[in-house]
């Protein structure tokens, strides 16, 4: 085996473990931030400041009994959480998270900090996200419970509706970058926007594409079923939505998928709009910039959840189709005209 191949395998394992870790960290951050926003402490007993709380949660989940309703479709009931978790992990494979590096001279040739460099990376993420819907839909149907079914139906309707705005917002960035490779898009964002010859702002796409960024983040929150768009699991109406009947590790897999999807949407938004790993000394500490930007977006996610109340379901649909999609389409048209006029 060549050193590059070994490095690739190590990198793949690293990404896998880091995604698992990120979910654990997000559970802790969510509970701690929720506590702070509600003027209470949040978890503080397990470990210093409660940092070991996610570990305790995992152990608790593992020792719970796996339950399955008698009328459930056994095969699909077991398959659904696997689809959810697999799609969540797979989507991150094409997300680049740092500039090319030799790991301080460890490798002879520089390697990309990305599991797979696909030239249609954005579409791959989109495709895997659309596969992830099946996990939720099948979970809803196979459990043979009315709450699960309603949760699954809501979720599929919501994801189909918001995928359109999500894709349209992406397309505007593709036009500006003139590429579908995430690496190429990040490299386009090096440098600064000039005003009278002076660099005033980093050359991130978020500044010319502020509308696209807002549409992308809104649709992203809806895609990941997070508050204020968490209808598939609206507790007051649907108990726990599509995962009502799940327990133990199969429930944990849905939970894991939700947090990893959040991380992926934040990472993609960072690459598309916030310049990815671009920043001072990007060649050596680019991954740190990437991490900081992703963490900021994730904090924003948590902040949203504990600040905004849930929408009403018909409002959600009306908002998606009558506000978000037209805005995204107009943004795309304006961007196309701009690219045509000023040149890419």
């Amino acid at each position, binding site marked *: 085996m060549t050193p590059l191949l070994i490095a690739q395998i190590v990198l793949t394992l690293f990404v896998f473990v880091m995604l698992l870790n990120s979910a654990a960290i997000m559970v802790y951050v969510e509970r701690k931030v929720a506590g702070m926003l509600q003027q209470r402490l949040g978890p503080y007993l397990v470990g210093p400041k409660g940092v070991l709380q996610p570990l305790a949660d995992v152990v608790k989940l593992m020792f719970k009994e796996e339950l399955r309703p008698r009328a459930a*479709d056994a095969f*699909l009931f077991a398959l659904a959480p696997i689809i959810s978790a697999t799609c969540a992990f797979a989507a991150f494979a094409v997300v680049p998270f740092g500039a090319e590096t030799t790991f301080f001279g460890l490798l002879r040739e520089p390697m990309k900090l990305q599991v797979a460099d*696909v*030239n*249609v990376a954005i*579409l*791959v993420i*989109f*495709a895997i996200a*659309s*596969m992830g*819907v*099946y996990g939720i*839909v*099948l979970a*809803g*149907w196979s459990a043979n419970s009315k709450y699960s*079914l309603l949760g*699954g*139906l809501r979720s*599929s*309707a919501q*994801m*189909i509706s918001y*995928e359109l705005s999500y894709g349209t917002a992406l397309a505007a960035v593709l036009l500006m970058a003139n590429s*579908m490779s995430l690496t190429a898009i990040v490299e386009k964002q090096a440098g600064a926007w000039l005003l009278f010859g002076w660099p005033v702002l980093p050359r991130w796409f978020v500044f010319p594409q502020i509308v696209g960024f807002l549409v992308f983040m809104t649709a992203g929150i809806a895609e990941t079923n997070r508050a204020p768009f968490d209808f598939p699991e609206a507790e007051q109406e649907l108990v726990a939505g599509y995962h009502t009947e799940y327990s133990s590790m199969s429930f944990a897999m849905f939970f894991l998928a939700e947090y990893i999807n959040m991380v992926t949407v934040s990472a993609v938004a960072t690459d598309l709009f916030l310049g990815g790993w671009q920043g001072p000394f990007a060649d050596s500490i680019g991954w740190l910039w990437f991490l900081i930007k992703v963490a900021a977006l994730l904090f924003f996610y948590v902040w949203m959840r504990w600040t905004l109340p849930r929408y009403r379901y018909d409002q959600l649909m009306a908002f998606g189709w009558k506000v978000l999609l037209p805005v995204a389409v107009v943004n795309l048209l304006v961007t196309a005209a701009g690219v045509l006029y000023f040149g890419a």
Partner: protein
Amino acid sequence: MAPEIVAFYLFGAIAVGASLLVIAQRNPIYSVLLLIASFGALSGLYVLLDAPFVAVIQIIVYAGAIMVLFLFVVMLLNAPHEETDYDERVHPLLRPGPMRFGAALALLLVVELGWALGRGGDSGRFPGGAVTSVADIGRALFTDYAFPFEVTSILILVAMVGAVVLARREEHH
């Protein structure tokens, strides 16, 4: 064997096997899922043909968008088993009316397939220099294939208008 050949036969077997199972299944939900598996295998074949863009579009459009709608409808109707109002022991060709017509069409398809496969040769191959990059596909779509492309758009527009008209609720004042 080269890895490409192994992958080709693997994806081919999944595509054919899953497609056969789609029509062999009694439960519509499983039929839909097997069709998705078949589309996935087809997408793998596209990747082997150096057409990643087509492969991903196959997943997004067919496996992702269209099949979710199929699943949606099947779930809403919640039909666990297809209802059969005919005697299953009678051969399809001997069953009444439209079913006999369908069986005849299927027979015709099998004969045509056999004829096409029997011809052999490489007549089905594309001329060299396949279109792979997204920019090339876009250019081809808006120049050489502009007319079929626009006709398809109009067809979809008509379908959309039709859906809106059908789904519109009458206002009672």
